[in-house]
């Protein structure tokens, strides 16, 4: 009889601990939920050192960029509005990165820290014009990691 009394207390304690763990563990490994996309979808695939887009021209309005980085390097995507030649954007003094504060460049938005196999969705309202999407890590743009987008 005494066994069941002590045993019951013990099993309650154990159950509590297990329950706590059961709640804590999933939380720590939970992934951020992706919000449902809206607007014109554009798929961007990043790799060393290239950006591939599946649409070069999109209508004005809400554009939703679904970005996937194949890696292996971590990348970012900067979106600027500019009339410069996409391949000849002005560079910083070190000559290795784009100077997005230079004249004729409007920085729209950016998303960074895309590691291997990371996905991100960037939703922007774009007015008609010429845009360039590029990765501005050292030497990445010069390696050819950019894409041009026209919004009508």
């Amino acid at each position, binding site marked *: 009889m005494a066994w069941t*009394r002590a045993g019951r207390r013990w099993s309650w*304690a154990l159950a509590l601990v297990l329950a706590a763990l059961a709640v804590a563990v999933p939380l720590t490994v939970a992934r951020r939920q992706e919000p449902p996309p809206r607007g014109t979808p554009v798929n961007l695939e990043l790799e060393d050192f290239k950006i591939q887009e599946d649409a070069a021209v999109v209508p004005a309005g809400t554009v939703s960029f679904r970005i996937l980085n194949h890696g292996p390097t971590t990348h970012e995507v900067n979106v600027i509005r500019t009339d410069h030649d996409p391949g000849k954007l002005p560079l910083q003094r070190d000559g*290795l990165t784009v100077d997005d504060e230079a004249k004729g460049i409007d920085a729209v938005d950016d998303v960074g820290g895309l590691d291997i196999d990371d996905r991100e969705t960037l939703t922007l309202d774009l007015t008609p014009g010429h845009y360039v999407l590029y990765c501005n890590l050292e030497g990445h743009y010069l390696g050819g990691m950019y894409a041009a987008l026209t919004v009508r």
Partner: protein
Amino acid sequence: MEPRRTAAGGRTGIGRLIPRLPILGDLRLGRRLGWVIFLLIVLVAAIVGYNARAIAQQRGSALVVNQATRQRALVERYTRDVLLVVDGFKADPKDSAEAVRQPVDVLLDGGSVRAPGGDGSRVQIAPAQNWRIRRKLENDRRLIDELITIGDRLLKRGPDNPQYEADVTKLRVLGAQLSSVSNDAAQEITQQTEASISRLVRIEIALGLLGVLAALALGLVLRRAGTEQAAQFRSLVNNSSDLITVLAPDGTIAYQSPSVQRVLGRPAADVVGTTLGDLVHPEDRHDVNESLTKLAEAAPGATDNFGCRLRHEDGSWRHVESTCTNLADDPRVNGLVLNIRDVTEQAGLRKSISDLLHNLARRSQGLVDRQLELIDELERNEVDPDRLQELFRMDHLATRMRRNVENLIVLSGVDQRRRWSESVPLRDVVEAAVAEVEDYARVQVAGIHDLTLSGQAASDVAHLLAELVENATSFSSPTTRVEITGGPTGNGYVLEIEDHGIGMSDADLAEANKRLAEPLSADVAVSRMMGFHVVGRLAARHGIKVQLRQSWFGGVTALVLLPAALLGSAGQHPAMAPPVPAGVMVSPEPLRLADTTAPGWQPHARLPLRRHAAPAPTRGGDTDAAAEAGEPFD
């Protein structure tokens, strides 16, 4: 009820593997405690193991990160060296190229590097396992190869080559890319290390929690076991109707459980220090002392049982049964432990049952006797042989019933004997015994001397003889005879009952003789040997000895030694005759000569049949058989 004891003193399962710790004493460390301790040990081992791994991993990853960050500097050095050489200055691009390669090669394929502390020792780094890190590092290596290719091209072609500017730019771009790529790889490594360390930390926290819980549980269990044991023991000792008494080696009571108040009406304090003998009934003291002394001298752990009477405070006697154990070697006890149970009720019950039995038996006896009288009357008046035959059968049946009833009376233990004031001829006693047996016609009586048997013993002797003769006839074939003969010995007279039957095994013979010599007291007669039990009791009353032996003819011989004190010579009773066969068989038979030496009994020679002239008979008058002078017993 005693708590169940196992071989290891109450511990089962895993508990037995744990040595007896002094603080735990003789608590019953059950399986659950064993499991708790086992779990604790596992947890501690796991925590220690994980810690070691975490430390090792951290050290390893610090080195790794160090390698990764060095690369940027190495790349720059290489680039500079190439450009210097191209511009005509002195430098060693080959060396720097190797230096650039080395970190990535080590990280990917494993190898030994100098320890960062600068103390000159080398540390082994294992090849990277994680697929992300490997992919980044392989990317890194690819870029390094490209870099070195460009570098080589520049060195080969020289500054005057039209591609020079483009190559230099390419070189610089590659260098920049390498920086970011190797940074990325280093970051990845760092992240992985941190993740795995935090995993380890989480696991350790969990283990630690479990360990705390287990320790808590352990404490609980121990505490519970302790209090349970104590409470159980206290309750047992206080509330049972058994007394627990510890006797010191000098015979005084060293400890007495409180239940003595209930059983003997005395408080325990009054009893401690006194001698047990004071409480025991005077008639039982000797036996109790003997048992206790024998136990005290026996090996430690030996036990014994005995029953006796103890005096209640109010003067009455309580029947008790006691189980004692010799615990002289146990330092906490250091004496004899008695577990005493009050069985007064049972003893009283037994007595009333045996009284009841006796009453019933007496009543039946009365009825059967009346029945026999009635049958006597009917037989007397019956002329028709066939009807007489029926009456004989009834007579025989009733006679046997009477014997059974007398068996009951004997077994009921009440000592009421049928007494005859005068002596009875021994021959008549033998004939009476034969009459009570089912197969009386098979019994041949020969050569019983002219002796009388004391009236006190006559009934019992007839009864015990009947039992023995019945035994003889039942265990022999109906075609064989059972012979009863008698002869004098140095200290009495021996009757022999011999059958030609199936005999008894030596073991059974021994058992029967044991029953005959020591008929058990009280009510413990085993039915298989009940007859012998009755015989033994009856014989014991009069100092008669009964023994069974293997007969030379294959069956069993029962020897009954009647002590001289019970016997008288022929002169006491008028109707004696020389030793002759009793009137069962038509034709007289010569006596058999047999050897009746038995261990402990004096050897004697059989008397031969003596023939002598019968004295002149008298006519009429006395309705007894013709008075004749008998043969004096010699």
